[in-house]
């Protein structure tokens, strides 16, 4: 079981997440859509405390953390059960592609270097980047960087993978290869929570679509329902706008 309940986050007087409840089954792929500034990124970032939520409970696997009384240890434990894929890749600039993947395996998971490198090469092969293993991020295309970013997240074997608009910063020519990789991750029954503006991809990959607006979940359901027969006017308006 994974999810959040009563999750609330304010920036000053601006309530960005308003008492959000969301449950995710193991192996489920949930895609969040919604207008800009609605709190989609903040929701993902609150789950691993990149943005410290003001209230609510976050559950990942067998770990539940109450935001109001989360200790540094709780937060680390939560982060170690999740993996995050950033819109701007956020690869470690001082590490090669392979080192980007081994870094957390060695420093955080305390695996041996040989073990970590074996895992990194496995992931690099899956992402089709084994020949770029020794390249630094600055020498990779946007698409390659994001594939390393996804590889870094895959290698962690996290209970929950969070994707914040992983293709939004990419030139159109690289979007396809990144979405392909995400499809492959999905095939492994990885629990995924994805924010994206790629509606076609969302319809195809999601078990469930969550539509957010104004810091709240407006409606959710299987892709066919949300895309073809949305109940709420806000959902209909949004879908009409994004085409």
């Amino acid at each position, binding site marked *: 079981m994974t999810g959040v309940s009563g999750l609330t986050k304010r920036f000053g007087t601006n309530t960005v997440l308003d008492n959000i409840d969301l449950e995710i089954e193991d192996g489920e792929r949930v895609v969040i859509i919604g207008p800009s500034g609605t709190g989609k990124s903040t929701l993902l970032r609150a789950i691993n405390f990149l943005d410290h939520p003001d209230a609510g409970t976050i559950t990942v696997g067998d770990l539940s953390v109450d935001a109001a009384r989360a200790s540094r240890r709780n937060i680390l434990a939560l*982060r170690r059960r*999740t993996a995050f894929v*950033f819109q701007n890749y*956020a690869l*470690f600039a001082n590490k090669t592609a392979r080192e980007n993947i081994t870094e957390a395996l060695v*420093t955080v998971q305390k695996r041996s270097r040989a073990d970590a490198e074996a895992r990194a090469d496995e992931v690099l092969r899956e992402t089709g980047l084994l020949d770029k293993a*020794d390249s*630094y991020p600055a020498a990779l295309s946007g698409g390659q960087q994001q594939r390393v970013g996804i590889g870094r997240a895959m290698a962690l074997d996290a209970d929950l993978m969070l994707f914040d608009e992983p293709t939004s910063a990419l030139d159109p020519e690289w979007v396809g290869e990144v979405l392909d990789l995400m499809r492959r991750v999905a095939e492994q029954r990885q629990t995924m929570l994805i924010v994206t503006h790629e509606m076609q991809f969302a319809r195809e990959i999601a078990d469930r679509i969550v539509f957010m607006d104004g810091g709240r979940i407006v409606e959710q359901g299987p892709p066919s329902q949300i895309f073809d027969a949305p109940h709420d006017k806000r959902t209909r308006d949004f879908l009409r706008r994004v085409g």
Partner: protein
Amino acid sequence: MQPLDIDYMLGLVPVLLGYVPLTLGMALASMAFALVLAALLAVERVVRVPVLDQAVMLFISFFRGTPLLVQLFLFYYGLPQLMSFLTQINGVTAAIMGLTLHFAAYMAESIRAAIIGVDRNQWEASMAVGMTRAQMLRRIVLPQASRVAAPTLVNYFIDMIKSTSLAFTLGVTELMGATQKEAAGSFLYFESFIVVAVIYWIIVEVLSYGQRLLESRMEEAYAR
């Protein structure tokens, strides 16, 4: 105007070169201590531990705000008075202490600026994979910051080498102190000091060359 005593000058060179190791030794020791201290101070200034932060700011402000010579005298003459068990403090030790604290204060500010200059997404990615704050600083942030700060730190090292000459006021016979003695014996002040000036100059030029190499390597950093 008298002609320069070239023979005296040539004879002085090997004598003075014998003191280069002490001068460079003091500079290297001070630099090593100052780097460690500056990194700690810089990290504190970024992380901002309550109370400690005020102390660090005061420390930096004092050692940047007062002349190095005053600081050296404070350590050499003042400290033994303050702490009676230190009946006397060795001039080299006092010089290294003074240089360390003085330059650490300056270097802390440039390391702090370099740390702050590291892209926010590097911090976030480190946190997201579950690193502790210490791991994040040691593995990701400081290595990137040190690349940015390196040329500036070499500048401070150059400055530090020249500043070791102040140790002669504490009775240390280093490069400057030795020159002073030779000049007082021969009365050839111009010749003596021009020779020592050229020796300092050459040391600094060699370092500046190294600095340029470093900078060009930095430009291609992480670009492979």
